[in-house]
């Protein structure tokens, strides 16, 4: 008979080993999926995980893309991880990302075509504020009416998508190009352009912001009372109240931080790599960041590694679409499998399987 036993202490070995094991299992299962689609599994896995960086043919294009794709993932995931530690589940980062982008672009379009050094910093503030504001909706509903922040934040993503479409078709539409949806291209508006800082590296202000966020989050979670209270509230809510933590305040703080960071990510994207407010602007970073947060063990340094890996699957996925005509959804399946395997494996961090002889109660 197989029995489950709770470990006395969570296993450190499995905590660290599981993300790697999950990646390996995802490669195997993904390979099987590709084979079932009639593609060469080895070539597909190579194309997704290795070629974007190491291939002479694609590398020069793909390598800068890595930071461009990873930075928003890391920026969003850092904020989500802080909330997740406190058992506050912001699932709607995608919505906050969109609203942040709209606020940032809104500032830029309002000033267009004026020059001025202050425009970009204003956009940064506006982007963070937009995300914060959107996250305050589930926060206030939760603290006032005890609604579920998972549902509210998730459903607000679809509201945000509608607003995005309305903006792209209406208020923010480029008046100079008749008939086409989408705003002016912010990359052509120098005061608002989130340009590459070092040519050929993909480093833009969003990458810098992600790095700063990682350092701040690390310091807060390990050295500051707020981080301590966040962990305490997640692990033992009653002990947190005993320590004087106000649950409502924590909900506002955690959702606020994650919303602001998601909003920032959206703003850096729309003013740089994305370029303009378009209907199809949202590309799922807000959801993928959930995987990044878990794969990185909610740890800021782990999130950097996980963000780079998931960023890689984005680029590799595009490459595989191009080269092997893999369906676009297959890369989402791939990312989903990664989370699935990780959560399944994590079971053995806290439990161990035991074979026992005979029946027991």
């Amino acid at each position, binding site marked *: 008979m197989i029995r489950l036993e709770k470990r*006395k*202490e*969570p296993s450190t070995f499995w905590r660290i080993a599981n993300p790697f094991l999950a990646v390996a299992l995802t490669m195997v299962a993904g390979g099987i999926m590709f084979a079932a689609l009639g593609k060469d599994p080895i070539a597909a896995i190579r194309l997704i995980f290795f070629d974007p960086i190491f291939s002479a043919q694609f590398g020069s294009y793909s390598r800068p893309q890595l930071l461009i794709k990873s930075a928003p993932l890391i920026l969003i995931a850092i904020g989500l991880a802080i909330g997740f530690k406190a058992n506050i589940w912001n699932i709607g980062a995608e919505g906050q990302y969109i609203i942040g982008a709209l606020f940032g672009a809104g500032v830029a379009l309002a000033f267009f075509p004026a020059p001025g050094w202050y425009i970009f910093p204003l956009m940064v503030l506006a982007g963070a504020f937009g995300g914060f504001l959107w996250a305050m909706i589930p926060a206030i509903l939760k603290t006032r009416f005890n609604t579920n922040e998972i549902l509210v934040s998730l459903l607000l993503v679809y509201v945000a998508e509608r607003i995005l479409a309305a903006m792209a078709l209406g208020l923010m539409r480029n008046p100079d190009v008749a008939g086409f949806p989408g705003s002016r291209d912010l990359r052509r508006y120098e005061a608002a352009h989130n340009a590459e800082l070092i040519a050929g590296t993909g480093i833009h202000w969003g990458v810098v912001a992600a790095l700063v966020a990682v350092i701040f989050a690390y310091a807060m979670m390990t*050295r*500051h*009372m*707020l981080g*301590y209270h966040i*962990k*305490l509230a997640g*692990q*033992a809510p*009653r*002990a*947190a*109240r*005993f*320590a*004087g933590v*106000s649950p409502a305040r924590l909900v506002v703080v955690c959702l606020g931080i994650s919303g602001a960071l998601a909003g920032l990510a959206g703003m850096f994207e729309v003013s740089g790599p994305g370029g303009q407010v378009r209907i199809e602007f949202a590309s799922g970073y807000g959801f993928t960041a959930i995987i990044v947060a878990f794969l990185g063990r909610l740890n800021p340094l782990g999130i950097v590694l996980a963000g780079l890996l998931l960023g890689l699957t984005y680029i590799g996925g595009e490459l595989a679409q191009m080269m092997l005509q893999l369906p676009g959804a297959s890369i989402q399946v791939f990312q989903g499998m990664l989370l699935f395997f990780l959560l399944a494996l994590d079971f053995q961090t806290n439990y161990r399987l035991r074979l026992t002889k*005979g*029946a*027991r*109660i």
Partner: protein
Amino acid sequence: MRQPLLRLDGLTKAYPGVLANDDISFEIGTGQMHALLGENGAGKSTLVKMIYGLVKPDRGTMTLRGADYAPAQPSEARRNGVAMVFQHFSLFDALDVAENVALGMENPPPLRDLARRIREVSTAYGLPLDPNRLVGDLSAGERQRVEIVRCLLQEPKLLIMDEPTSVLTPQEVEVLFRTLRQLAQEGTAILYISHKLDEIRALCDEATILRGGRKVATCDPREKSARELAELMVGQVLTPPERPAKPKGAALLQVTNLSLTSNNPFGTSLKNISFTLHAGEVLGIAGVAGNGQDELLLVLSGEVPTGADQVQLKGTPIGHLGPNARRKRGLVAAPEERLGHAAAPDMSLTENALLSGAQRKRLARSGFINWNATDRFAREIIAKFDVRTPGPNVLARALSGGNLQKFVIGREIELAPDVIVVNQPTWGVDAAAASFIRQALLDMANRGAGVVVISQDLDELLELADSFAALNEGRMTPVRPAKGLSVDEIGLMMGGAHDMTPAHGVNA
């Protein structure tokens, strides 16, 4: 000499890293009341689990009525006439008494017959029960009756009772003892587990004492003093806490007309509670579990705020303040539940030292934690309160209950407060650690602090308290001097009228 009912021969059971039972042999006679005594961790639970078929011994044999007895599971034990009443009830609140009883039986008869049998048996043994009442509406004592009646319906030859009186008022205990004596007279052997020595001396005719997994002695408890038994249990000479007489100090903590509606459906609302605590005074608050103890602690610790004037510390209204503001002003608390309330299970002792120590020990400056100072504070608690642990980096949940309790109480005492409120300070703690914690609380009072001890352990309260009050359904009795109070009076204060008189019949 009566013929032995159950003989244990060299029972041994090892768990990784600990020998829970080491070569234990003794006999229980038919109709005998046999006590099993020992501190926490002495191996009592493991031993009875082997008898009840929950755990298989590594070595050793059991003989029941002359035949080999090696139950593989509890149902086999029950078929052989061995029944057990656990310390923690396994009852469903939403089902009625008869349904609950049926759930615990192998082949329950139709509910109507069962209800009739429950009435018969429960009345015959002086434990009247209405089979149609919902268990959720019953008091702790009545719930225990359900468990006992469930066992009695199977006509056991051996009834194992695990600390049955820990949830009962003195009057309820009397009723239970009458039932047990009647059972013994009819030939049912009773294995009675407890660490309340007076009870055992009143009830049992033989006692087996375990210490560290080994049998230390089998003796007649009526021939030993409670003190001798305790010393056999802990293996050392115990000194009762001492305290010099002292005059009453200034008023420290004043609670005035405190009422609080519990927002938890199973909680107890506090009703109009008033008392004053003076410097150097230990106020003992008694009561059966679930009569408002938890709620009172939350209100005093600041986790649940009230009107500002309802709680005053040294004349300043603090009822509206949260836990940290109260700590800063000199009021600290230690809740009953160690894991999850007083301490975070998955955090290290160092991190747990920060939990309530941050303010008074200045462990954080403008929010940034001084981990070195926190670590020193944790080590200080560990050293001063004899917390047995490899070091402050160990997770709280890895500590035994008694050690964690020493850490939690030690942490609050080290904060040198003016007033400390503790709930069940020695619950589940072994005798040596318990007397240590009690002494530490008395030392605090001697230094001029005010101490509020909420406890269900009357012996503990009588040992510690200068003044005494009891909680019953959220109301508190007036505070009386503890000196000269008899156990009967205390029982009445605790609300002994919990429908426990056997004459209180059930309408058929």
